[in-house]
């Protein structure tokens, strides 16, 4: 029972209810950081870390939180993990911290964290909420990493800063700028939604044909 529920959460967060291409959350950070793979990786790991732990914490203390101040407490817990992350980055990875600049602090305002706290952690057990936060982060990460691969490859000719394209390759300046992320996110949404719509249609026809046989 627990196992199947965990699987359902995983599938939901990675595919059928993906934070980026279905819920359309966290788009600002998608535009901002995806022109560089290593920054994208640190940023999405940060979001995953903060979402998972804040969901866990909020779910564990959900019985104690008065409804009136529910959102205030949620923001306090999220800010706590994000600031902790920022402190750790500044101490142990100063170069990354310098490159990401204000974006780490802005994880607090990432709608995915609030969304998971409101939609899931409030009504579920701590461990499952942790899993939900973790997989939501992974759903976010998978899409952002895919976009970052395209943007860094075409915009800089590199992957993780290592030159991949031949010297003669002329870099696409547009891929470095924020608008390209708009196009790419839209293309991912188009692809995912079309595929999902087709599956739903296919499932509907099988059900219809079964019913007809009866």
């Amino acid at each position, binding site marked *: 029972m627990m196992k199947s529920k965990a699987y359902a959460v995983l599938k939901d967060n990675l595919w059928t209810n993906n934070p980026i291409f279905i819920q359309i959350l966290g788009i600002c950070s998608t535009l901002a950081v995806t022109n*560089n793979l290593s920054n994208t990786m640190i940023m999405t790991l940060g979001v995953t870390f903060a979402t998972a732990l804040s969901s866990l914490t909020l779910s564990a*203390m959900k019985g104690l939180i008065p409804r009136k*101040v529910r959102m*205030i407490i949620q923001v306090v817990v999220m800010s706590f993990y994000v*600031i902790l992350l920022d402190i750790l980055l500044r101490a142990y990875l*100063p170069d990354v911290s310098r490159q990401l600049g204000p974006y780490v602090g802005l994880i607090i305002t990432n709608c995915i964290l609030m969304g998971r706290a409101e939609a899931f952690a409030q009504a579920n057990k701590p461990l499952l909420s942790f899993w939900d936060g973790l997989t939501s982060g992974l759903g976010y990460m998978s899409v952002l990493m895919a976009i970052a691969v395209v943007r860094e490859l075409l915009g800089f000719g590199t992957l993780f800063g290592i030159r991949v394209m031949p010297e003669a390759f002329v870099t696409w*300046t547009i891929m470095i700028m924020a608008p390209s992320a708009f196009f790419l996110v839209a293309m991912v949404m188009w692809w995912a939604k079309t595929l999902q719509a087709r599956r739903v249609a296919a499932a509907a026809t099988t059900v219809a044909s079964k019913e007809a046989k009866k």
Partner: protein
Amino acid sequence: MKKDSMLYVVIFTFAVCAAFVVVLAVANEVTKPMVEANKLFATRSAVLGALGIPYANAADASARYDAQVKELAGAVGKAWTSSIDGVEYIAVEAAGPGLWGTIRVILAASPDGERVRGIRVVAQNETPGLGGRIEEPWFLGQFEGERAPGGRVAVKAGAEASGKADADKENGRVDGISGATRTSQSFEAIVNAGLAALKAGGVR
């Protein structure tokens, strides 16, 4: 106590905030020396880089900084002095507006401001891949040993995105970055202001 009573809400909110803030304060205190050390290393490595003193790692950088670089007292803003192979150089911190935010550099040159020794970018928020390329070695390398007639270096349009650079060290000009004209212009202004400050502040 009822969960929705005013007293409970106030006490609960206060307790939760206090608990989390205490943990953050402790984390901040514990990592403070490391953050300070990182900041110090960032500045020192930029000064060493601008002065053209090579170093192997953070410890080596610190040792070389202590041995070869002197902080210049009485200068306007931060300044450093170092004599390399018997020739004296002065480094200053220069800053100015870029396209998106403040660009801060460490600039080293001869005391009369007529020949640049080197430049390192300390902080910038320019467009990645365009203005952000002011940090790249091909661009900064152009300034190393560049003559600055009358204390001025011109950053000219003309370089291609492939990263070609002006190799002539005597003409007092370097190639700007294609697609980042505004950042190139800002950089020129910052470097020239830095050279002027260096000339004025370096007089003892």
